[in-house]
C-alpha cells in the first residue's frame, strides 16, 4: 500500500513538473486568469448608468421643462444634446450616438393644463434588447412619479402607485456581486480544462503513455496521479480568485467557507474527470484541444453564468443537468450572497459527485482501451 502511494506521488510530481517546467505554459496558467478576473469583473455588467439621450422638446411650457429636468437629472441618463427637428432623430440613433430620443410635442403643456393626457414619444435603439428594456423601465418610473405628483398637486386621482420592491441578498442590485462569484467558477474551469485536457493526448502523441502503461503503475494509480495536478492547480487558482473577490471586489461572503470549498473540490474533481476523459479519447493534441473547446464553451453558456437557466427552453434545461458548472454557480452565489450552509446545498453537491465518479472511471477505462 505504501508503495502504491509512493508511485502515485511520484507520478503526480512528474505531471506537475511537466506542466510547470515550461516557462510559456507557466505564464499561460498564471497571467491570463488574473488579468481576466480584473477585466471581466468590471466588464460583465448589466447595470446601466449614463445612458446617452437626446431631447427634442417642441413645447415651451414649464411642465415639459420640469419633466425633461427629471429625466436628465437622473443618474441613469446623460443628456447628449437638444435637437430641434425630426430629421435629426434617425442619424443620432442609427450611429449609436444616443440610445434614446425623448420627443415632446408642441401641445404638451396645454394638454396637461386642460386635464388631458399628453403623449410624448420615446424612440429607443432596440439593437440591444436588454438595454432597451431596462432603459425604458427607468424612464417609465420617472414618468409615473411625475404623474403621481402632478395629479396630487392638481387635486386629481392619480395613477397607481409605484410598488416598493425589496430585493433580497443583493439589496442594491449590483451586477458585480452576481458576476464576480461566477467568474471564480469560470476561470477555475478554464484552467483545469487546460491542464488536464491535453495531459494524456500529449503523452500519446509522444509515445510516452504506452511506457507509462507498462510500468508497475495500475490504471487507478495513473488516474489519481494525473488528477492531482489539475485539482491542486485548480484549488490554488480558485482560492486566489476567491480572495480577490472578497478583498478586491468586496463581494460579501455571507455563508460558510467550508461549504464553498466542498463545492470547489467536487467541481474540480468533475472538471478533471471530464478533462481526462476528453484527453484519453483524443488521438492527437489537436483533437484534445478541440474536445476541450467543445466542452468548455457549452459549459459556460449553459451554466447560468451570464443568462439564467430558467430562461432556456425545457430541452436545453435538461441538458444543463450534466454540466458540473451549473451546480457550482448555485453554490458560489448561494454561499456568497444568500449565506447558504452545506445542508442547503446538498442537491448541488451530489450531482457533481456523480459526474466526477462516472467521468473519472471512464477516463481510467479509456487509458487501456483506447489504443491504436
Amino acid at each position: 500500500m505504501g508503495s502504491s502511494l509512493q508511485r502515485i506521488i511520484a507520478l503526480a510530481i512528474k505531471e506537475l513538473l511537466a506542466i510547470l517546467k515550461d516557462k510559456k505554459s507557466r505564464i499561460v496558467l498564471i497571467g491570463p486568469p488574473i488579468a481576466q478576473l480584473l477585466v471581466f469583473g468590471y466588464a460583465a455588467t448589466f447595470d446601466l448608468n449614463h445612458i446617452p439621450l437626446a431631447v427634442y422638446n417642441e413645447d415651451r411650457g414649464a411642465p415639459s421643462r420640469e419633466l425633461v429636468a427629471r429625466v436628465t437629472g437622473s443618474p441613469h441618463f446623460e443628456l447628449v444634446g437638444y435637437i430641434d427637428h425630426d430629421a435629426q432623430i434617425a442619424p443620432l440613433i442609427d450611429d449609436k450616438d444616443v440610445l434614446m430620443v425623448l420627443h415632446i410635442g408642441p401641445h404638451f403643456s396645454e394638454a396637461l393644463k386642460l386635464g388631458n393626457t399628453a403623449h410624448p414619444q420615446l424612440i429607443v435603439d432596440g439593437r440591444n434588447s436588454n438595454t432597451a428594456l431596462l432603459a425604458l423601465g427607468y424612464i417609465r418610473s420617472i414618468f409615473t412619479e411625475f404623474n403621481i405628483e402632478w395629479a396630487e398637486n392638481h387635486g386629481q386621482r392619480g395613477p397607481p402607485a409605484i410598488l416598493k420592491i425589496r430585493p433580497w441578498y443583493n439589496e442594491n442590485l449590483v451586477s458585480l456581486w452576481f458576476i464576480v462569484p461566477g467568474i471564480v467558477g469560470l476561470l477555475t474551469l478554464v484552467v483545469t480544462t487546460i491542464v488536464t485536457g491535453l495531459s494524456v493526448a500529449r503523452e500519446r502523441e509522444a509515445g510516452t503513455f504506452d511506457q507509462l502503461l507498462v510500468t508497475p503503475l495500475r490504471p487507478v494509480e495513473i488516474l489519481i496521479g494525473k488528477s492531482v495536478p489539475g485539482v491542486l492547480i485548480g484549488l490554488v487558482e480558485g482560492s486566489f480568485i476567491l480572495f480577490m473577490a472578497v478583498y478586491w471586489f468586496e463581494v460579501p461572503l455571507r455563508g460558510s467557507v467550508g461549504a464553498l470549498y466542498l463545492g470547489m473540490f467536487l467541481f474540480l474533481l468533475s472538471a478533471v474527470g471530464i478533462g481526462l476523459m476528453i484527453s484519453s479519447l483524443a488521438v492527437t493534441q489537436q483533437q484534445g484541444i478541440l474536445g476541450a473547446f467543445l466542452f468548455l464553451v457549452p459549459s459556460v453558456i449553459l451554466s447560468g453564468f451570464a443568462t439564467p437557466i430558467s430562461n432556456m427552453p425545457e430541452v436545453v434545461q435538461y441538458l444543463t443537468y450534466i454540466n458540473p458548472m451549473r451546480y457550482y454557480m448555485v453554490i458560489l452565489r448561494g454561499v456568497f450572497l444568500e449565506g447558504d450552509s452545506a445542508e442547503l446545498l446538498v442537491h448541488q453537491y451530489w450531482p457533481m459527485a456523480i459526474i466526477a465518479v462516472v467521468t473519472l472511471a471512464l477516463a481510467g477505462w479509456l487509458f487501456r482501451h483506447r489504443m491504436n
Partner: protein
Amino acid sequence: MTPAAASFMRLRGMIRKESLQILRDPSSIAIAFVMPLVLLLLFGYGVSLDAKHIPLAMVVEQPDSKTASLVGAFNRSDYFNPLSFDSIQDAQKALDLREVFGIVWLRNDFSQNLMSQDSAPIGVIVNGVDANKARITTGYIQGVWQAWFESYAASKGVKLSQPVALEPRIWFNAAVRSTDFLVPGLIAVIMTLIGAMLTSMVVAREWERGTMEALMVTPIRIGELVIGKLAPYFILGMGGMLMSVVMALWLFDVPLRGSFWLLSAASALFMLVSLGMGLLISVVARNQFVAGQLSLIVTFLPAFILSGFIFQISAMPEPIQVITHLIPARYYVAILQTLFLAGDIWPIVLANSAALLVMMVIFLGIAWRKTHKRLDA
C-alpha cells in the same frame, strides 16, 4: 518561366498540400462546420434574456373578490407562474430555498387601503442575486399591478388622471426579442473561435513534427507560405460563416435588413483577422500545447464578455472600454448587430471595418515577420 508564374506555381502547390492535409484529417472540417452548427444551436436556444414563467409566491392574508381578481391577473400573465402560500414565513422560506423567485404579499388591509392615495398596498420581494433578472422581473410585476389597478378603478367608475402617457417606439426590434440581438453577436463569437482554432494549431504542428524545416528548404517564400496556409482555411471558415447566417435567418428568424454583400465583405475581413490571430498564436507558441492554451484563453472568453455581444460596452468602466478596443470581435459584433437589425448604416460599418483592417494588417504582418526571423535563426 517568369518569377510571377513560378510564385504562382509554388503557391498552388502549397495550397494543394494544405487542402489535402485538411481533407485527410477531418478535424479541421469538423471545426469549420460541425462546431458552428452545434454552437449556434446551443447558444441560440440556450442564451436568452427573456424571462418567462417566473415562479412567484402569492401570499393573500385575507382573500376576497379583489385579491382574487389581482391574483388572476398574475395568473394570466405569461411572465409568471404564481404559487399560493399561506403565510409570508412560508413564502420567505421558499425564497430562501430558491423555489420561488419573488413574493407578492397582499396584507390583510389590502382591500381597505386599495384606493388610498399614498402607497401601494402590496409588498414585493424579489431575489436580487441576479440583478438583471431582478430588475426585469420588477418591471413585469409593476406592469401587471398597474394594468390591473387601472381596470379595477375603471370598473368602479373612478377616473384616474394620467397626465403623461409615454409612447415608446423601439426601433429595429419592436418586439424586444433578445434572440434578434443575441444571434448576430453569437456569429461573431463563434467565428472568432473557429478562425483561431483552425489556424492556431497548424503552424505549431509543423514545427513540432519537424516538417517546417522541410518547407523552409524549398524555394517557397514567406509570403507564399502564409497565403498558402491561410487560403484553404479561409474558404473553410467562410463556409462555416455562410452556414451560420443561413441558420440565423431561417432557424432563428432574425431579420437581415442590410445587404448580404456587405455582410459577406465584412465577414471575409473578420475571418482574415481571426485567422491571422490564430496564425500569430501558432507562430509565437511553436508547440501545440501552448498554442491550444493560448487560443483558448485569448479567443473565447474575451469575445464572449468584452465584445458587446451580451454586455453593453458603454456600460463598462472607462478603462475597460479602452481594453475592448483590442478585441477584434467587438468591431464585428457592432457590424453584425447593425447589418442584421438596422440596415446598411455606413458610418458604423465603415468605422468598424477600418478597425478590423488595421488589426488584420497588424496580425498578419507580425506573423509574417516572426516566421521570417525564425528562418534566419
